């Protein structure tokens, strides 16, 4: 490759770096501001004094969270949920995507199943019928209500299915010649070459399950069963809205006490940490495990 070393390339590079770095900062600074707020004292935050550096450094917000039993209960519910959901999602996605990746000649009723899942992806029963179903199944207030309704993420199934379709046919044929059963083909051939795609859907599953607060809000009837994001959501109430709707003085006072912005910031920081930790582990799969080089034509 020829690397130009004249002025115009340098300027071009400078402009590109400038744009990339400023876009990066635009994404990063608000997050950093939240971190700074979480380490500042309440009155400094209320006075809008905190920018990128904590003002009147204080860890009081974090100490308060440490004492909040419900926060940690919710945290562990969310961790359980993510683990169960991830395992369930990956198993079901793979088991569903593999047969669907076969042609109609190999798998006769493929298109019927395909149409059903696409229909289910586009249309749902609506909130109240779903709620009634869940209630009648006695799933309210169990961990399963957080996991089962979303156990088969159709979008991810289609993604993996298309990835399987793209896997060279000769790989499978080679395995058949070696006497592998369909299950062996799936687990020994398809999955190892599909790790980047699986890492992607795993990330979808983790992030989606961790961040989802709506399911908890609807199907959990007791606060003690709230997952973490639902709990945080229930605490961060817009005091202006409450004041406008004329809540009584005691309620306002109670909310003002938990409503200080640095406490909320600290909760947001703590609740993002798990995702920040998981990402680097998954990232290596995006680089390795590529199909290229597995077959020689």
């Amino acid at each position, binding site marked *: 490759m020829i690397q130009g070393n004249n002025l115009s390339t340098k300027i071009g590079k400078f402009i590109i770096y400038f744009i990339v770095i400023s876009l990066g900062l635009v994404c990063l600074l608000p997050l950093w501001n939240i971190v700074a707020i979480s380490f500042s004292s309440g009155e400094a935050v209320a006075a*809008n004094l905190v920018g990128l550096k904590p003002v009147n450094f204080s860890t009081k917000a974090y100490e308060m969270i440490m004492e909040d*039993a419900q926060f940690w209960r919710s945290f562990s519910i969310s961790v359980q949920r993510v683990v169960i959901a991830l395992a369930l999602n990956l198993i079901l996605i793979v088991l569903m995507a593999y047969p669907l990746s076969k042609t109609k000649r190999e798998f006769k009723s493929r298109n019927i199943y395909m149409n059903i899942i696409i229909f289910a992806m586009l249309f749902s029963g609506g909130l109240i019928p779903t709620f009634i179903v869940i209630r009648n199944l*006695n799933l309210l207030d169990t961990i399963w209500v957080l996991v089962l309704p979303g156990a088969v993420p159709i979008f991810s199934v289609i993604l993996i299915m298309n990835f399987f379709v793209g896997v060279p046919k000769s790989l499978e044929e080679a395995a058949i010649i070696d006497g592998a059963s369909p299950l062996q083909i799936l687990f020994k051939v398809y999955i190892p070459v599909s790790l980047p795609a699986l890492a992607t859907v795993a990330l979808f599953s983790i992030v989606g399950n961790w961040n989802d607060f709506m399911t908890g809000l609807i199907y959990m009837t007791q*606060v003690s069963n709230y997952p973490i994001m639902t709990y945080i959501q229930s605490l961060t109430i817009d005091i202006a809205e409450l004041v*406008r*709707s*004329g809540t009584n003085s005691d309620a*306002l006072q*109670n909310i003002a006490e938990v409503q200080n*912005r640095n406490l909320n910031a600290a909760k947001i920081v703590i609740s993002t940490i798990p995702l920040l930790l998981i990402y680097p582990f998954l990232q290596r799969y995006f680089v390795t495990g590529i199909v290229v080089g597995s077959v020689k034509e």
Partner: protein
Amino acid sequence: MIADSFKEFKPLIVLLVLTILLTACVQSSSNDGETTTEDGKTIINIGRSIGTNHKLPEGDTFEDNAYTRAAEKELDIDIRNAFEANGEDYDRQVALAISSGDLPDMMVVSREELKDLVDNDLIEDLSEVYEEHASDYIKETYATYDNRPLADATFEDSLMALSGTEALSAPQMIWIREDWLEELDLTIDEEGDRLITLDELEKVAEAFIENDPGDSGNPVGIPFASFLNAGDYGGSAFTMNSIASVFEGQPRKYLIEEDGSITYGSTSEGTKQALEVMNEWFNKGIIDPQFGTRSFDDIMALLTNGQTGILTGPWHIPDWGLSTVREMDNDARFAAYALADDEGNVNVFEQATTGRFIVVRKGYEHPEKAVQMLNLFYDVMLNTKEADMENTFPEIAEYLERGVDDSTKPFNIVILPNQKYLDDYQDVQAVLDEEMTVGEITDSQVRQNINGIIEYMETPEDALTNSWSNYHSRIVGWGLMNKLTEDDQFNWAEAAYVGNTPTMEQKQGNLTKMEEEDFIKIVTGAEPLDYFDVFVEKWQNQGGDEILDEVKEELAQ
């Protein structure tokens, strides 16, 4: 060929049959129909509206705490939570319960939900149990409002719900930094009647902007929230309601005029005059130049920074809004005044007297338990003196000490006599004058407050911010209300309280938005004052007239 396609569908059919079988198996509902526990206690499933910051001691929950245990012991019941949630989330749970046809035995609902429930015949008639079981104190409490809370829960002569109350109407107050007034040697309110005029307010604001007593380097005038008006006393923080009331305008209120007609306060001549003053002030810089774009948090920041020292708001704003000011500046003190009109009167609208409602599911066997709980929580516990509290309800005495809030009670509503705060103020004063001891005060909450007040009065510098807040809301805020009541300065406007009419539900949102936007335009001078007449016309044509008709119709009933 046919056989082939059947084969294709076979797994589907099997699946379908299986699903039907499965659902048939688990048809039983979560409410498994148990009504008594093994030891003979009545089970009550309650929809619980809860608060955010409950301060419950370790191990206690909303379902099992000192209040529920006391109720279980006194009334022989077993309280279970059908669901618990706060704010909007609670409303959603109630909506889900109503639409899925699985009501808890008792729950707290809004006026609109109550109407729905009555229309669909889903709740029990409580007339008889109320008459038979309600204590005299509870009945007297409702009587202090001329029984309006009961009338609001009565449909075709049947009492369908037990009402919460909204205690006391009051003027929106002007809170001014007292330490700054002293620093600049400003005297307002020379007569000491706690009343000020618009001119006096303007002068103070000018002096604050000129001298910057907060040393902020960038003083701004009086901050107002962009929504500018509130139709509810509790929501009147940073609004211009008190300025409008000087001209007898009561924005955001549906009012009953002396001739019996219904008007909307925002379209009144008084509101127009108030907007004129606001516009004038905006041009002079008396009002925050960035008015309209500041968020609620930004306004709080102005106060905390010392950029401004004047605000409008309800008596309880020191409790939840101003504490950061004190935390930032230990010497900060506020004085509260009311704005008076030319004749020296304070114009106030009457607050709705009814809060939310307790309803009992149709067919529930023990509706009397709801009334008995009312007696226990809003009569017996409220009227137990300190000394007896330790013996009768030791756990609850401890809760009060910790400041555990009311949402831990089975019903998160308030039932207090009208003018309660004035009585409380007199109790507090009596203790400060040493005519009474703290132990003699019946209301446990007031007992808590007074300790803070005494702490602040003895050592203002070292007192906790909580005590600072208690002093400001109870002594300064209630004190102003008490003074004005004693001097008989109030001029009441009768408000038409009807909840939501059908047109309101459809159009109120848009009308309010239009009102907010047009008022901002007038105040900032983007439109001339005469634009107000255009607004009035728009308001009438876009649904306002229909609303007035509906309000009138509903009041006639």
